[in-house]
């Protein structure tokens, strides 16, 4: 008997080849690998803007809020406008993760991660404006209820305090939501990464291995967090709106404010998801995962919330006229035809008129159209807050104390800096976390495999 050939013996001893990695893992982890020159250039630009804004802010701390153009009667300027804008942007993430999760809307899987990441970044951006807006930053902790030498407590009847609680709760819960969802994906990255990334993801995955017990606890956590976050999403912008509606300023003192603000927040949040994700999808070739189907569903949300916002604009005018209160009537007249007419018409055209194009399927599925429209909506939503805040404060009851406000260079730099801060953080996260939830996409792909394509 001849001995078997050496090759056959070697084949027996050789370890079995590793099965090929899942294509979903490969595609969705790819954006984390390597950085291009363009990425560095973008990061450098955003960092430069953030640096400029920081320099202006330090100057403002030194010289006082005068350099921000804060003068009688407008003491809430572009900072508060931008604060409300960013809180609004923060609404899409938790809406998509929590409310659409409870409704079992499967199309959320492709966009929930990026929207959650945007939420967390937007809340952090918004929170900074509370610090930027108060003149004496070193006393800003006075807003927190803690035992102190002054032996006094905060006033819980103030909407500003409700805001402190609402925004910090929202920021915390959004971050928890993002992290909980990321754990299985961190484990996927851990099993594939090398060097420092391996260490990072090992720590972040915290021993996740997808056992039945782990998934069971994870599903339950997601469900309960969604249940908790659903009323939270609706409450946060309601509380922000009460910052205005609880006062007696004409144009602010309206019961419609809470639903009006919530709809506006969801509207602007979805627009921001589109503005950010359309380029990301293109650059990283995620067309297979974020499809026309997702865009169409997001467009429908935009259309719905645009209609609610448009209805709120109309009903505000109706209430002002129907109330018979002269100050209300003149506030709204001046809104449309007074010194801030341009902002008002920008707001109406961008938020209520332009999105009507989404009635057409062609527009809903055309990515370039949606990109342009989402930018238009973002601009319109910033101006909406500008109209409400500045328009309200500059034209209160007594014409003798009316004034004109124009944002100063300091404010504009810091506002631009906030957009750069948002972009900078998103760019950094883009390289650290998978922007499409891998485990959730796999749930769909395995399901399809089990039941045949198109199930």
């Amino acid at each position: 008997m001849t001995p078997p050939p050496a090759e056959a013996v070697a084949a027996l001893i050789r370890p079995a080849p590793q099965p090929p990695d899942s294509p979903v893992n490969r595609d969705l982890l790819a954006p984390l690998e390597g950085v291009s020159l363009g990425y560095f250039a973008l990061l450098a630009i955003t960092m430069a803007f953030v640096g400029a804004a920081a320099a202006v802010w330090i100057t403002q701390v030194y010289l006082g809020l005068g350099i921000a153009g804060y003068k009688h009667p407008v003491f809430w300027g572009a900072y508060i406008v931008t604060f409300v804008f960013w809180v609004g942007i923060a609404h899409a993430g938790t809406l998509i993760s929590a409310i659409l999760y409870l409704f079992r809307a499967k199309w959320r899987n492709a966009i929930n991660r990026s929207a959650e990441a945007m939420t967390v970044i937007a809340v952090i951006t918004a929170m900074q404006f509370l610090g930027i807006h108060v003149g004496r930053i070193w006393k800003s902790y006075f807003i927190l209820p803690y035992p102190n030498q002054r032996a006094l407590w905060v006033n819980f009847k103030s909407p500003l305090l409700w805001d402190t609680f609402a925004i910090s709760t929202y920021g915390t819960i959004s971050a928890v939501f993002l992290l909980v969802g990321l754990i299985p994906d961190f484990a996927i990255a851990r099993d594939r990464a090398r060097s420092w990334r391996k260490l990072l993801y090992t720590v972040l995955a915290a021993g996740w291995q997808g056992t039945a017990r782990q998934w069971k606890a994870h599903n339950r956590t997601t469900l309960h967090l969604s249940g908790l976050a659903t009323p939270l999403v609706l409450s946060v912008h309601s509380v922000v709106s009460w910052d205005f509606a609880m006062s007696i300023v004409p144009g602010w003192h309206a019961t419609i404010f809470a639903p009006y603000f919530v709809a506006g927040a969801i509207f602007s949040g979805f627009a921001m998801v589109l503005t950010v994700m359309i380029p990301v999808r293109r650059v990283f070739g995620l067309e297979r995962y974020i499809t026309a189907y997702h865009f169409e569903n997001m467009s429908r949300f935009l259309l719905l919330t645009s209609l609610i916002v448009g209805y709120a604009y109309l009903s505000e005018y109706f209430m002002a006229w129907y109330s018979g209160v002269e100050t209300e009537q003149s506030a709204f007249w001046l809104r449309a035809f007074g010194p801030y007419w341009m902002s008002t018409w920008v707001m109406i055209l961008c938020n209520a008129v332009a999105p009507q194009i989404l009635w057409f399927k062609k527009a809903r599925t055309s990515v370039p159209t949606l990109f342009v429209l989402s930018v238009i909506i973002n601009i319109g939503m910033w101006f909406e807050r500008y109209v409400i805040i500045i328009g309200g404060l500059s034209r209160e009851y007594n014409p003798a104390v009316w004034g004109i406000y124009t944002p100063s260079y300091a404010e504009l730099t810091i506002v631009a800096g906030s957009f750069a801060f948002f972009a900078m953080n998103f760019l950094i996260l883009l390289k650290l976390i998978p922007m499409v939830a891998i485990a959730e996409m796999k749930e769909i792909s395995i399901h399809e495999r089990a039941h045949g394509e198109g199930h």
Partner: protein
Amino acid sequence: MPRLLAVFELPQQVVDAVTQLRGRGYLDLETYSPAPFAEVEDAVIEKPSRVRLYTLVGGLTGVVTGYALTLWMANDWQIMVGGKPFSSIPPYTIIAFELTILFGGLLTALGLAVHARLYPRKLDGAYSARFSAEDFGVAVSCQERDVAEIDDLLRAHGAKEVSLLDG
């Protein structure tokens, strides 16, 4: 005791195999899934996760804290406004609501960490990167004499590989 690891491709195969194994009294088993599949999890553990208790306790703590904090502080430093009561329940409800969500959410996350054992520790010997790709794993401990039987059972349910783990 020897431990066998079987690799499956579909969740339903895992469910069938696990149900059979548990029916025959092999209770020391563990599954590894790349994505959540309720049927797999229910086959291994029938009871709902304890995490739900954490949410309840957190939420209740939050609502009590919210009202207690506001009521106590308002009465510790009384601000007289037009002869109205010092305690003003409707605005305090907002604080209580926010704290309900905050404490409930944080405790739920703690529950996840405790019940999914998410803290620094070594991964199971049976776990490998393929279970974070697209394969499902079933690891089961059995007596030396049952190895062949379990091996047959696992393969009969569609296991594409069955291996004996060290230790």
